[in-house]
């Protein structure tokens, strides 16, 4: 009996980890694609907030989840375009532009939320759970894993698609070459800027979906600064996963597990550890993760360096 309780506890925790990891998976896969092309975008946090707010506001107005996610992607693309213009076209420092984007994302979403929504206090209808036939009937595992909303399942598809894109398509191979040796791409007659724009736009659209997940599938409300560092954690995930989409999925799951454990343990009254220690856990783990992967030879060699024609 005791074993069965442990098993179901472990299964529900892992399933919760998958749900909690979902926004990080989207952001981290997006950032992986962007960094593979040599562009480091630390504005992910701000873009996630923009996606979360735009998705929420759109569904609030239209009651349509599809519109909500489409609008979030649109907001992400706009933010990505702004970032790409400054970091690629006018070759400004990517860290500085990313920091500005974070401020803009935080400021704009909080400003608009306070102007239009703060007094309403209403939530929106969130994405429903989809039961997968047969699988969802498996004891223990079924209800935990196969009764999630569509976005949680789609993380697997996004990972596979990103891996396929980067490894099996001509576009993806060129994109990686742009991150390693842009001059070769340039000499071959292809536009380095075009590939970098594409990578940044894919990355920011995915980050915006990750943000929209928070308001449209996780909570049903927008809260100021609700991403609470998930975008920054996604940056660390990319490094820890050595710029691999599949790795990013599993590392994100690990972080989801820490969030899940934090929630489970916080409900435990006599734990003997202050709850702040659990709150700090994901951030401490992020630092440890960066220390563990000290070998950074997998990093795209032109990461963060604007390309100038000779």
């Amino acid at each position, binding site marked *: 009996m005791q074993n069965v309780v442990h098993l179901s506890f472990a299964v529900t925790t892992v399933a919760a980890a998958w749900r909690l990891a979902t926004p990080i998976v989207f952001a981290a896969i997006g950032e992986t694609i962007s960094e593979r092309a040599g562009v480091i975008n*630390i504005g992910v946090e701000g873009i996630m907030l923009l996606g979360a707010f735009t998705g929420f506001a759109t569904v609030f107005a239209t009651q349509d989840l599809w519109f909500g996610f489409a609008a979030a992607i649109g907001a992400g693309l706009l933010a990505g375009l*702004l970032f790409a213009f*400054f970091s690629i076209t*006018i*070759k*400004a*420092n990517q*860290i*500085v*532009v990313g*920091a*500005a*984007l*974070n*401020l*803009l994302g*935080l*400021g*704009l979403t*909080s*400003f*608009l939320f*306070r*102007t239009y929504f703060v007094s309403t206090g209403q939530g929106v209808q969130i994405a429903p759970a989809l039961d997968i036939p047969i699988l969802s009937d498996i004891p223990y595992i079924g209800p935990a894993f196969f009764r999630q909303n569509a976005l949680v399942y789609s993380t697997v598809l996004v990972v596979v698609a990103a891996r396929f894109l980067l490894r099996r398509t001509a576009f993806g191979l060129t994109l990686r070459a742009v991150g390693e040796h842009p001059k070769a791409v340039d000499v071959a007659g292809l536009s380095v800027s075009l590939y970098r724009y594409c990578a940044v736009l894919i990355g920011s659209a995915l980050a915006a979906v990750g943000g929209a997940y928070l308001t449209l599938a996780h909570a049903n409300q927008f809260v*100021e600064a609700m991403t609470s*560092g998930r975008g*920054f954690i996604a*940056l*660390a995930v990319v*490094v820890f996963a050595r710029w691999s989409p599949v790795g990013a999925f599993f590392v994100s799951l690990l972080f989801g597990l820490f969030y899940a454990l934090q929630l489970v343990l916080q409900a435990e009254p006599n734990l003997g550890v*202050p709850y*702040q*220690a659990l*709150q*700090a856990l994901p*951030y*401490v783990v*992020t*630092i440890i993760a*960066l*220390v563990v992967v*000290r070998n*950074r030879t997998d990093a795209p060699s032109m990461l*963060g*360096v*604007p390309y*100038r024609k000779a």
Partner: protein
Amino acid sequence: MKRSSPLAVPGGESGLAVADENSPPLGKMGQARLLHWATRALKAILPPIAAVALALLVSAALLAFNGFPATDVFTIMVTGVFHDVRSTSEVLLKATPLILIGVGLCVAFRCSIWNIGAEGQLYAGAIAATAVGVSFAGLPAWLHIALILAAGAAAGAFWAAIAGLLRIFFNASEIVTTIMLNYIAIILTDFLVTGPLKDPAASYPQSAKFLRDLWLLRFLPPTRLHIGILIAVALAVAAYVFLFRSSAGYAVRVVGINPHAARYAGINVPKNILLAIAISGAMAGLAGAVEIDGVTFRLYQDISPGYGFEAIAVALLANNNPLGAIFSGILFAALRSGSELMQINAQVPQVLVFVIQGLVILSVVGFAAFKRQTARPAE
């Protein structure tokens, strides 16, 4: 008159811009020298002014677009901020931590160390300052105050040095580690003010209040303005001398512009990285101690409204020049005061200030890029 670009990544474009930062050619006639300095100052001041003007224009458009009377709002802001001695002193009070942190970030950014963790370092300093301030009863007040400030600076330097050492020994990106250390410092503060440092007599989570004798001197009563602003200005001058008039500061800048060249020149790169990030951390920690000992007199969770992040914009607007950071710090403090007035008098959400900060950064890098393009016709 090409200045070393603060935004250059290591190995980036401006490899030779170090030498002409100092030592302008000394004209024989005083008048020519004056003219030289005047044009130089004008050239340095115009782009940031244009950048701020552009950012405010876009913010005004945003306000108008969302149904706020933009011109009225900005009139309230401009007339209210420097209305009288009291409101001006409040601006300087807010400018104090911004200048302190901004000056430190100038040093880190000149070394191409992206310390995004000043907020956490401020909290680390505030924690240490509080711990010292509520203990050691019976010390002479001047010594106790000095200890409070020193503890704040040391704790900030320590918190930043963690990220510096991880960068040096494990090649861990200081951008990510400093951001994570922000969260950890703020959570630590929450733990301390609800637990070990909590004032038993208070119902809110906060520390005990400092004794009146330990408060930083207020030199313009009845305003709250304290000597922190003088400390900030003095340290800005000291940091300028360090960066641009000392060989140690020169080494820091060379590491920032090209670490490989620095290594060939016999400069100890890890040592300079650690020095630069520790200086920026010490300044942020000192800012935390000054806030505790000059404004709040006790520790609680929201002692900083994001000064550590705002100071990034302060340093960038100043082109990473500590003397410029005095002025950009005052400017951002005025924007913050103005946004408070907007909220009170025109119901504009105060968070607009983050939008303005982000826009200022973007227009600063935009103007810098424009300058770069016009400076190289050969391309």
